[in-house]
């Protein structure tokens, strides 16, 4: 999968067609050390090693929250847990635990908003990219995250892997099962637009990499 370069600060990862987008982006971010604030099993080892690439697990530090209060405490703790080597912070399913009734709505909504601001502050003050997603969240919760975030990228699953849509970024291929599935922009970039003299190549449906 081709991913846009990760920028410092909080990025809201919109996942209009389901989960997994945050994990996919993190998987391909090639970070030295990632702090992963987990909920609801998003840190399943198998989601992270979807391409059977176990090196992804190297440098990945995970802590799981099972209640909203634990989640907030974990985000707070991530600030202390971050080392000089930490170059990515990930928080998938951000709103999930705040929507399970462990306390009154007002208390949890405030806690959730504070979690979003903390993540934004963490990204801003350390210059580390922070990826957060809120699939299955209520519109209000997604909006709170969007407002706290410095930018937004959209990530959707396709038959050929995840497609990423970010400001100023056009994807030229889908990573899927160890193959590049090419898209038109890629071939335009390689061969020029249709109508210009294209070099004779084998049927360019899929080119193996590795």
């Amino acid at each position: 999968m081709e991913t846009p370069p990760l920028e410092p600060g909080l990025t809201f990862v919109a996942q209009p067609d389901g989960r997994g987008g945050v994990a996919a982006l993190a998987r391909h971010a090639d970070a030295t050390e990632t702090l992963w604030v987990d909920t609801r099993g998003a840190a399943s080892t198998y989601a992270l090693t979807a391409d059977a690439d176990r090196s992804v697990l190297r440098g990945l530090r995970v802590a799981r929250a099972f209640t909203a209060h634990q989640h907030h405490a974990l985000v707070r703790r991530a600030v202390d847990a971050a080392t000089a080597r930490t170059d990515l912070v990930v928080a998938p399913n951000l709103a999930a635990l705040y929507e399970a009734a462990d306390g009154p709505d007002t208390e949890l909504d405030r806690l959730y908003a504070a979690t979003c601001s903390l993540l934004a502050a963490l990204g801003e003050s350390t210059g580390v990219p922070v990826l957060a997603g809120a699939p299955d969240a209520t519109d209000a919760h997604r909006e709170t995250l969007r407002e706290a975030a410095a930018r937004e990228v959209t990530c959707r699953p396709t038959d050929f892997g995840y497609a990423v849509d970010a400001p100023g970024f056009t994807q030229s291929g889908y990573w899927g099962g160890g193959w590049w599935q090419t898209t038109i922009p890629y071939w335009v970039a390689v061969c020029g637009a249709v109508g210009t003299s294209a070099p004779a190549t084998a049927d360019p449906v899929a080119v193996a990499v590795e």
Partner: protein
Amino acid sequence: MAFAFDVTGDGVRVWRRAPGGDATVRTDREFRPSLYAAGPDAALATLDERLARDPKVEATGVASRFTSLRDDAPRDVLRVDTAPGAVRQVAREIRCIHEPDRWAPGTVRLYNVDLDPTARYCLATGTSPVPDADLRSLSLSLPTAALADGDLTALTCEGAPLATDLERTDAAERRVLRALADRLAAADPDVLVLSSADLVPLLSDRADDMGVDCSLGREPGYRKLAGANTYQSYGRVGHSPARYAVPGRAIVDRSNSFLWDEGGLPGLLDLVERSWLPLQVLSRASIGTVFTGIQIREAFERDVLVPWRAWEPEAFKDARTLHDADRGGFTFEPAVGVHEDVVEVDFASLYPRIMCEYNLSPETVRCDCHDTDDVPGLGYSVCDDPGFVPSVLQPILDDRADLKARLADAGPDSAETARLEARSGALKWILVTCFGYQGYRNSKFGRIECHEAINAHAREILLDAKDALETGGWRVLHGIVDSLWVTPRVEDPTPIEALCERISADAGIPLEREDDFAWVSFVPRQDGRGGSLTSYVGKVADRDEFKIRGLAARRRSTCGFVAAAQRDLLRTFDARRDPGAVCDRLARHVARLEAGRVDPADLVVRTRISKSLDGYDRRSRTVAALERYRDHGIERHPGQDVRYVVVDDTVRSRERVRLAFEAGDDYDATFYRERLARAAGEVLSPLGWDRDRVRGYLRDTRDTTLGAFE
């Protein structure tokens, strides 16, 4: 000593009775429940100032307490004494009004907020809720349908009807209420054991209407403590019916007391003593609540505060460590089929014993002061300091072992035996629960890493045991978490006792020879994909007894006819060891069913519902049953059972079923034949006989054996 408590707006009323004496009541108007707040000094000082203006807060002060099991030393916290019954309200206001004004969420942490008010009173004032030995109880029952109709004529007391009238009339009901008043006056019970707590408003209100002087309590009146509601716990939907209190008597609602079913009054009282949850609270508590209660009592003794919300998260850890830790207990693939000469060996109370033997507790696992590698495969450290949970569990383990030893001495069928068994049964459930509780997200004193460490030890213990057994000449046929089924692999294996002794010594946990089986059958899964991990049946050697797990005969939804037929097929197999003989027997059951000769009472299917009627969108049997209940004015709630006979499974209307208490004797033989065939499959499939083969056999032999079952 005290046995019943009533927390009211102006104090706590404590009911006591000395042996042989009359009950007395005293109202404690001085008691003020306290919650605690921890946080930075400045925040606590400000909070103190603001709370001083709150009329619900009567006093504040500084106290020295541990805010977590992991704390090395106590620290200064703010104690907030509130008006009776105002603790939660004050806590909510701190969280939602005072804190947002000034500080980030979680700056101030609150403790001792959501405790049961009566248990809090006992713990804070040192008032023991353990009743004296001569506690007097009286039981009252009314069948479900009569309860829904408000028909008192069917009321029974200690199992005997209170009135002999068959006809329901005002006069008859009045006689029932008068008889009840007489019984209450004569027995003067401390505990009322009711078939349903709804009897409280029904009996009281009707007595009022009819002008009969009959109050269930030692003073007139009753209070509704909580309305009925539906809840989710451990992923399962449950229903908790409305709760009531009457003055001077503890109420046990049998329809809402898991512990009553398991341990009766002796079991309940044993747990009252351990948890200091008063009988009226404990009887309706879940096992998890009781275990929490026992821990809270220990926490009070240690000056450890009880957190309101589960704030403490796990620490960040390497993803590979997480991957290694994230495994459950070990389960062998069962060797599908029938095996002769099998021994089952069990690690008794494996999980709690692991916690005690290896000192596993939320505060000892991955402690801050050690950097050792103490948990196999995970590299977690475990502290040397005595752990909190082991100190709670060890007495329970010891007492249960003691109860078992006394049971072995006590004569069979004596009253003493029943009492010991009840207590042992209740304790067993606590021991079963303590492990899952460590992984439960809202545990007051739980931690996921402790859960993982227990699992890690359990896996190694089971695999070490497998090694030792194999070396000793045995073959492992199946094993689940704490049990192994083995059969000799060589002519003359090392005696199982000697191996058990060696394995016990190595693991530090006793491995016991549970049962010898003449044969054990491990059942394949319905879809044919390997063995079902938890379905098996064994014929105990030298005893007329089967041990059945996961089969139709054991499932609570199975009707009596199918369960009995399956047991009969098992006995046939045991006697003849011949699938054909089992099929012949099956044919007889089918013939009886199809001839309409089965008593419909034996065809009642029981299903626990997960939604209320309006929540279902499929036209299932359950929906048909729920509609019929509603026709009778009975509302069934998620977590409750529906009981019905299938009358015509081809229709989707409410005519599909008949409720267990409705009159009628027809049934849908085709439906029950299918159930019977499935139950027979569980007996025959381990022998390699699938349905086609059974059908083929029956076709071929039907002519010759027809006489046998007609």
